[in-house]
């Protein structure tokens, strides 16, 4: 599994140095400088697929998430919303699980594309970090109060957060909110930010996120899209999830390139909408 460490170049080299030398990177790269770059192993591309045919709204994911984290009362990192389609008497209720989309983003910062929440963060880019791919290759990136890891996860670092709340405004989905029980690291008079981290602490140890683990119906499928043999890659091919982002992701008009896809054969997602002003209310799980 990948590790994520704050940078110290020397230390990192000490760890990976032996492997790098063993891999013979030195000799090959000196001989063929251009091909060395192409051979660089990719970071995983974590995506979650929500199978709307299977979700029956039991909220086990919401509870598992609450249990996994210290999610404050009244705040949620994952919720299940519902949409009623059709006309009486032929109506149907579909449940739509939601969580932070861990968007790919289209706005550039350096060589990376980042979603709006990262772009607006005044504390990004901050400290240097190194991401080590499963093959042992290193990818350099920058941390921040909110930042994007090379494997696509949008993460939080409360130590450098000033609690300004710009990221809450920037997120078009309302996936972020203040953690009323925790102070921001840099400005203790403000609240910290809370949002889904895709259970990065579990992920780095090779364990699936809590909501996926607990989903009895198997409606949440998590995996690495860069691995062609994975379940998510198979489903993405089968349902053309990447090609039809307009229909398979939440709020495509925000142009943030979400990494949470929905298998939605009935086109229910198009009927689900919320007002930009009340976006934060969408992350309250209220059972109707």
């Amino acid at each position, binding site marked *: 599994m990948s590790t994520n460490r704050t940078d110290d170049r020397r230390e990192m080299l000490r760890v990976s140095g032996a492997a790098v*030398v063993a891999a013979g990177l030195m000799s090959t*790269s000196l001989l063929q*400088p251009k091909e060395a770059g192409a051979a660089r192993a990719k970071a995983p591309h974590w995506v979650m697929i929500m199978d709307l045919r299977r979700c029956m709204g039991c909220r086990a994911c919401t509870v598992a998430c609450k249990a996994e984290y210290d999610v404050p009362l009244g705040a949620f990192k994952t919720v299940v919303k519902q949409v009623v389609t059709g006309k009486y008497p032929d109506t149907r209720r579909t449940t739509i699980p939601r969580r932070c989309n861990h968007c790919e983003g289209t706005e*550039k910062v350096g060589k990376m594309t980042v979603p709006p929440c990262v772009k607006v963060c005044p504390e990004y880019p*901050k400290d*240097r970090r190194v991401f080590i791919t499963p093959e042992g290759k290193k990818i350099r990136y920058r941390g921040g109060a909110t930042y994007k890891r090379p494997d696509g996860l949008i993460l939080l670092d409360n130590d450098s957060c000033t609690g300004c709340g710009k990221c809450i405004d920037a997120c078009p989905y309302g996936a972020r909110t203040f953690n009323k029980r925790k102070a921001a690291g840099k400005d203790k008079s403000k609240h910290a930010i809370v949002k889904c981290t895709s259970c990065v602490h579990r992920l780095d140890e090779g364990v699936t996120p809590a909501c996926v683990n607990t989903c009895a119906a198997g409606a949440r499928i998590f995996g690495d899209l860069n691995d062609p043999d994975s379940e998510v890659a198979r489903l993405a091919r089968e349902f053309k999830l990447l090609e039809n982002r307009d229909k398979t992701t939440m709020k495509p008009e925000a142009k943030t390139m979400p990494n949470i896809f929905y298998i939605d054969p009935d086109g229910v997602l198009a009927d689900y909408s919320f007002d930009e002003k009340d976006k934060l209310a969408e992350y309250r799980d209220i059972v109707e």
Partner: protein
Amino acid sequence: MKKGIVLTIVLIVFLAAAGVLSVESYTAKPQFCGTKCHIMDKPYKTWQASKHGKSGKVEVRCVDCHYAPGEKMTLHAKFKGLGQLFTYLSSDEKEVRKATHIADISCTTSKCHPADQFMDKKLKYGEKKKVSFTHKTHFDKTIPGQEMHCTTCHIKAGDEKHFEVPKEQCYICHFRKSDFNKGRGACNLCHEIPTTPLQSQKKNAQPDKDEKIITHQSLEKAGVACQSCHYQMIRGETALMPRACKECHSDTAVLAKKNDMKLMHSEHVAKQKAQCADCHQPIVHKESDFIEAARLNCASCHPDHHSYQKALLVGNPYGEVPATPNLMYNVKTNCLGCHQKQEVLKGEPVLRGAARACVDCHTKDHEKLLADWEKEVQGEVAFAKENHDRALALLDEFKDRLDPERVAAFKEQIAKGQQALDIVVYGNGVHNKKYAIMLIDEAMNSIYAVLDELEPLAEEQNATEENRQ
């Protein structure tokens, strides 16, 4: 027999009349002027693009404007045309006439733009349609010796759209030899001065009776000069261009009269021969860079002083770094907004930036921001410099083992990184922390490209040395 002669005469007269009429109507067609006469190519195309041409509601023929009403279909007009053809054929010049004559009456005939309808009509001019304008005021007020005609302003012929008014034409009269916001250069002659609050957060807020709202009017009352915000709106001298007279005239007796303003204007403008910009240097009326105002004090001794600081504050795209202006730049805070602390440095008074300035506009907590930023940028610069030096040292160490082409490529990479780093080092990264860090990343990308190739070599060398021991 007699009958036959009469018939022949009638026929000849009829044929001649038909011939004259057909030639007459053929030569009155815009297509005749535009396509048969090849020097009219440009004006013809701009006419087509204009409202008078094919893209307008009514197609106005060339002869409708270029000959006065009543004149355009006569033999007199045709002989004038033949005269022009003769001049063209007997001359080597590519362009025969510099300017054309269009009588005002051609424009203001009852079927086109009757004076009683358009003189008082309130119009909006400009790309954003924000400049209010009436024709009447312009016809009433004239400079000595000058008459205003339609074509004094509607001069575009050879480029863009036929008859369009270029804004530079307004500037020469309105801003030549006039003070900012005085007389005919007054802002409110053209622009509506806004009455809405200047503070962005109060623009949409509910009005509060006790609260004082800052508007353009309250600033005017307080005696704040317009120039302090609208810095250098007018640029250019509009002096006579040195070679302008000699473009057309070579006679010394004629050239000697060039300072007689009244004569010059009546000859050139009132008789509708020349355009303002033919003789006067153009003038620019546009909001200038407000940062320059603060830098001007230093510029007399150091022409390129503080250019790095400015580059940071403005935050233009650089390499892979996207445009990232400082938030202070977006709200038009210039250098003096933060540099308020008077200090004497090497016997010279200087203005230093101080955290105190942050507190004045923001909250007390903002005082510590500056120190944080300084520390962060210094750390980043130190890290980048260390790696830059290491890359150079490694290159020096292993240059014998690499082929010279690659060494040159590496050196170029390092130099490229140094360029980005220089902006942060010399410009002081606190001027735009976010942009500075992105610039350092840009520099580090170049330096890492070299280090990634050289460090394994160093590692290998260390390993062999350890084995030997």
